[in-house]
């Protein structure tokens, strides 16, 4: 019993310490992103743009392909039920609402977490192991300013941008299978889609995606700074980064879904 309480106490202490470290990281990032540039202490815009290309543009092919296929799948699955009622035209409504409110933001975030969140952890972790973070500090260069702030800005820009494109691609996927496999009239599908989308669907999806980007970046960075030891440490934290990111993405998704349900 005492052993169990001891373990619980240690776990609680570790979680509080982790929460404090993340809080410090969040405050420092905001300072270097917002306050420092106003005071003329510079921001690495070029690095931020390069990261937008890495996180956004280079993620587009895989995100686009997966979202297209999911659009195809949803339309076919919907047809399985709707066909019995002669309501195949409503496939368009189902695909559009699912894509905008839920699936496109979620799938985009999960793919970017796997692709870029892990890369952030591996990069910072390797730099820590190789004393490159220490070298930055000794040169008087703040690692949060140099490494984190540009990545953060890039992530909260790239994730919503890719999400917006993936929403469109998922609808195209639904259109393709509904038209070519199920036999829905192309024009009917388009008019049903346009008629079913409301502004709130798009806005809720994009707002969620911004917070998904925040979660992916901070988890990636935090896990990177946590790396200890050599290559094995980098591998362990990179895996932990992806798992934690996906878990947080689902939690954030749940939070926003409950919030928007009541709004």
């Amino acid at each position, binding site marked *: 019993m005492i052993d169990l309480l001891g373990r619980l106490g240690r776990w609680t202490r570790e979680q509080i310490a982790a929460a404090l470290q993340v809080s410090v990281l969040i405050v420092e990032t905001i300072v270097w992103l917002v306050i420092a540039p106003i005071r003329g202490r*510079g921001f690495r815009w070029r690095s931020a743009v390069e990261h937008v290309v890495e996180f956004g543009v280079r993620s587009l092919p895989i995100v686009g392909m997966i979202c297209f296929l999911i659009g195809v799948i949803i339309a076919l699955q919907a047809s399985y039920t709707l066909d019995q009622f002669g309501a195949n035209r409503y496939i368009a409504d189902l695909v559009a609402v699912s894509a905008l409110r839920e699936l496109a933001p979620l799938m985009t975030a999960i793919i970017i977490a796997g692709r870029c969140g892990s890369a952030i952890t591996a990069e910072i972790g390797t730099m820590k192991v*190789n004393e490159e973070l220490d070298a930055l500090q*000794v*040169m*008087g260069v703040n690692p949060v300013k140099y490494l984190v702030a540009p990545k953060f800005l890039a992530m909260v820009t790239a994730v919503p941008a890719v999400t917006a494109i993936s929403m469109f691609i998922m609808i195209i996927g639904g259109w393709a299978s509904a038209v070519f496999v199920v036999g829905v009239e192309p024009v009917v599908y388009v008019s049903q889609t346009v008629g079913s989308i409301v502004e709130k669907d798009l806005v809720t999806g994009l707002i969620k995606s911004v917070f998904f980007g925040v979660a992916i970046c901070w988890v990636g960075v935090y896990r990177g700074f946590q790396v200890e030891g050599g290559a094995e440490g980098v591998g362990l934290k990179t895996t932990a980064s992806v798992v934690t990111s996906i878990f947080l993405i689902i939690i954030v998704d749940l939070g926003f879904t409950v919030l928007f349900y009541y709004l």
Partner: protein
Amino acid sequence: MSDSKSVIVVEDLEVAYGERVVLESINFEVRAGEIFVILGGSGSGKTTLLRNLVGLMRPRSGRILIGGQDFTAMSSDERMEMRRKMGMCFQGSALLGSLSVADNVALPLREHTKLEESTIDIMTRIKLELVGLGGVEDYLPSELSGGMRKRAGVARAMAMDPEFIFYDEPSAGLDPIVAAGLDQLIRTMQSTFNLTSVVVTHEMESVKIIADRVCVLHKGRVVGIGSLDELERSEHPYVRQFFARLPDDLNEIDSAYARSLTAID
């Protein structure tokens, strides 16, 4: 040299990892323009001491005065400002792997000055020529040999024309010829720019070439300090053992305990 004023002063320094004290009662002074070597065996605490000197760790107690200012009591911003006067060469060179050699050397200039890119380019080439690395500007650190990486590390440390330069095990892992070349480079930097240099090493051959004064660390304490000649006459058993390159007395190891660690009956 003895008339020079002290520019780095360490007073009653105590450093601990959690409850484990790794450095205690550390007191020494580094004089302007000298090469001060911190010498000691593995686990003696010399790298920990160096990390405290450059502000990568905070001591549990004691003070480090650099240029008359208490480095340990400075705010984060003040420390960052002070670090512009410092350069450090890491054991593994710690060049940023994603940047070319030239970009590594240019990094502090880009971060701390408003110089034109063309000026930074010229200054970078000068620093690289200075350490004998002209022509490798566009190489990535992974494309260089160990000795070249260390030289590039020196060029980066020199980028902001520092007053103080710190070297962590500069000749570790290098063949004798390359190591001798680095020793010569450390001497050249000190004599050309009148740099105050602090070198952490355990290589006696390097110490004989570069050291003006030496501080010997053993089990987290200073056991000898002075010129090489003075230390060679030291009566302290560890200093004598280190300079004579004698092994620990194997009889002191509990043979029964040693056997218990193996499968030997």
